[in-house]
């Protein structure tokens, strides 16, 4: 009887050990938790929605193709409907869950949570490229060139390509918020530092459905270039009205007409969809590679979208590319931390990100140039392409990086 019990005990012991061993093999891969909060619905969701798809698809790809070996990334993406209170709540929830990296969205929430990011000591990649994000901040890493770099770079392009004599007269058409005003201040600093443009007027747009009065006024003041820093829909209204009134320049800087140029969130396929042929000739600064370029990077982006069943609109959106890059940055950091045989935690990810420069810079297929960070430089891709709307597509015409912004930043 006793021996029977002993046999039963041993069998049970073996079973328990087998289950434990199997479980430990299955749980061999580590799970790295990340969090993202953005506007998938509500205001600006036309940008946030494809962005969330880009982030989601890239992490799926990482896990499916075992880019991190047996380890996987679990990124919770929550919709904050562009409300800072909801973003803060989401961020606190992610911290409670033990995230190692955080992805944020709007300028407002990034500025509002800046102190929290510092306290929590978690590296953050936002979708906002506002210069102010980097002031008094160590944890924020911008993926690409800032809005100010976009606008000042475009102003430099205007100066370099202005064919008539005299100083080019420009007007600003901006979003009535911190997001809109930031680049204006930096352009004013650039003018003070010697940039040869004259800022004739600044228009903070409302929700106007007609821009006739404003366009007529700008033209009467001799404005030739309109620098736009907003989102696509108000710019589309402006472009359509300008076309209707016959004010749009047929070629860059045409005398007596208006040439429109804009920063990151003004352009892309969404602008063409909204403005139609009124967008023709619009110049747009962006640090992402467009799928209309039909290059290797574009092919990879489209393949990824196809693999996860995305429609053409999302696949070709530069906001989808933005999402991919936002996801690629922590993925690459985790990969490098693992290669360095360090523990994957916020402190080590922060350290490795700051070392991502020189020979260690990262090349992403969605970006216009290499991505690099250092303790003194938290702007990833410095290169920006100037695209022009031609035949319903944005075509790259030049790669630029703003010289004046270096001077302005050095003076800060």
């Amino acid at each position, binding site marked *: 009887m006793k021996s029977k019990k002993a046999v039963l005990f041993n069998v049970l012991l073996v079973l328990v050990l087998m289950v434990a061993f199997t479980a430990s093999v299955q749980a061999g891969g580590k799970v790295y938790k990340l969090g993202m909060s953005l506007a998938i619905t509500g205001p600006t969701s036309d940008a946030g929605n494809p962005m969330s798809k880009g982030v989601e698809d890239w992490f799926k790809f990482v896990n499916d193709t075992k880019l991190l070996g047996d380890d996987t990334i679990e990124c919770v993406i929550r919709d904050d409907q562009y409300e800072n209170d909801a973003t803060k709540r989401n961020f606190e929830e992610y911290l409670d869950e033990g995230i190692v990296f955080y992805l944020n969205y709007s300028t407002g929430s990034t500025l*509002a949570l800046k*102190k929290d990011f510092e306290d929590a000591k978690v590296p953050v990649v936002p979708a906002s490229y506002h210069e102010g994000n980097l002031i008094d901040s160590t944890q924020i890493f911008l993926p690409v060139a800032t809005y100010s770099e976009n606008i000042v770079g475009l102003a430099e392009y205007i100066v370099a390509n202005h064919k008539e004599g005299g100083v080019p007269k420009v007007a600003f058409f901006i979003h009535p918020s911190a997001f809109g005003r930031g680049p204006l201040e930096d352009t004013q600093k650039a003018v003070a530092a010697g940039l040869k443009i004259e800022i004739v007027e600044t228009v903070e747009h409302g929700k106007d459905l007609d821009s006739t009065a404003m366009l007529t006024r700008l033209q009467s003041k001799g404005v030739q270039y309109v620098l736009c820093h907003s989102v696509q829909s108000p710019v589309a209204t402006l472009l359509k009205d300008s076309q209707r009134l016959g004010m749009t320049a047929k070629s860059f800087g045409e005398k007596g007409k208006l040439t429109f140029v804009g920063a990151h969130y003004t352009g892309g396929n969404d602008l063409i969809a909204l403005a139609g042929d009124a967008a023709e000739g619009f110049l747009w600064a962006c640090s992402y590679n467009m799928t209309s370029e039909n290059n290797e990077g574009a092919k990879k982006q489209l393949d990824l979208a196809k693999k996860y069943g995305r429609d053409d609109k999302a696949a070709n959106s530069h906001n989808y590319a933005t999402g991919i890059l936002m996801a690629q940055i922590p993925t690459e950091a985790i990969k490098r931390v693992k290669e360095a045989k360090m523990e994957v935690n916020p402190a080590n990810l922060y350290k490795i990100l700051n070392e991502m420069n020189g020979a260690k810079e990262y090349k992403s297929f969605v970006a216009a140039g290499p991505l690099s960070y250092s303790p003194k430089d938290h702007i990833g891709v410095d290169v920006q392409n100037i695209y022009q709307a031609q035949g319903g597509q944005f075509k790259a015409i030049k790669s630029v990086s703003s010289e004046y912004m270096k001077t302005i930043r050095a003076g800060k």
Partner: protein
Amino acid sequence: MSANSWLATGNFHTTYKHEQNTFYTSLDRSVFTFFLILLFAWPIFYPLSNKYMLVTDNILIAIVAVMGLNLVTGFAGLISIGHAAFVGIGAYTVASFCRTLGADHVMVTHFWPVLIIFSGLFGAFFGALVGLPALRLKHLYLAIATLSFQMIFQWVINFMSFFNQGQTISVGRAFWLTGEIGRNQHYVFWYYIILTIVVLLGFGVRNLMKTRYGRCLIAVRDNDRAADAMGMNPGLTKVYAFALAGFFAGVAGALHAYLYRGVGFDSFTLKISVSYLAMAIVGGLGTLNGSFWGPVAIKLLDLQVEHLSEVAKQYLPSAMNVATALKPFTFGLVIVLFLMFEPRGIANWWRITKSYTKLWPFRY
């Protein structure tokens, strides 16, 4: 007075002094004390995550703001649709100190109770100022006047560089007897502070309504000419109703600034003003406990709708953007349903429940 102070089935006042009591029966006092102990003790025994502690703190701040709104709109009958601007005045008072002295100045970090009271007083000053049109205006016209104040506030904050053009102005971490309140204790610490303020202000309102000043508010609401004929001063009453509401809102704003460690324009828009009004309506206008029920109901509803939206968008095509519509839709629906079927708000359910339990096991 009832013979049994524990089991009174009605309010039998035999002296005016007894009518002034905060609690009429021992049972009332005991239940309240137990509930208060519970409110102070639960974070020790059942600690919430930071996310839910933030939600709780937010509800308590909304209670402070809605108590103020209920004074002016519920008790005094003066419609105010610029209440978020008054809350903003309080928050931007703290922000102004941060801009002038620095976010980590000792005045901001150590003397925060003084700053909170000062913000309340500043709110009261602006409340009285905005209340001046109430001397001449009534009903819809007064509502438009308060709306104008909301618009002026938004414009000033959004365009003045002193207020960082609406961008977030950082507020330093508060200090307590034990030193700086770190990130881990932040939400619990502010829970206790805000809860204490809610209790003090709650008692303040309850006692106010037992004084001639409180009765004046109700008299002016019911008929200001009759109140005038009875020797009250309707003009002064209206102005101090606005001043009181401004004080409560100012305190709420200062608490918001410290809780979020920053002040940004987004938290004090017209949309927030409307939501304060909705909280007052859903809770029950003209009741003290309605100021508690309303914020709890609306804030928790918001949170649940957010969770529902998360689920809904997984099954519905993104182009339909149903999740976007869900929040304003439920918000509007709840207000309409309350106005139609329970205009006295949740406070009325509470009243019915209380009277039922008071009579139990008898039916009447």
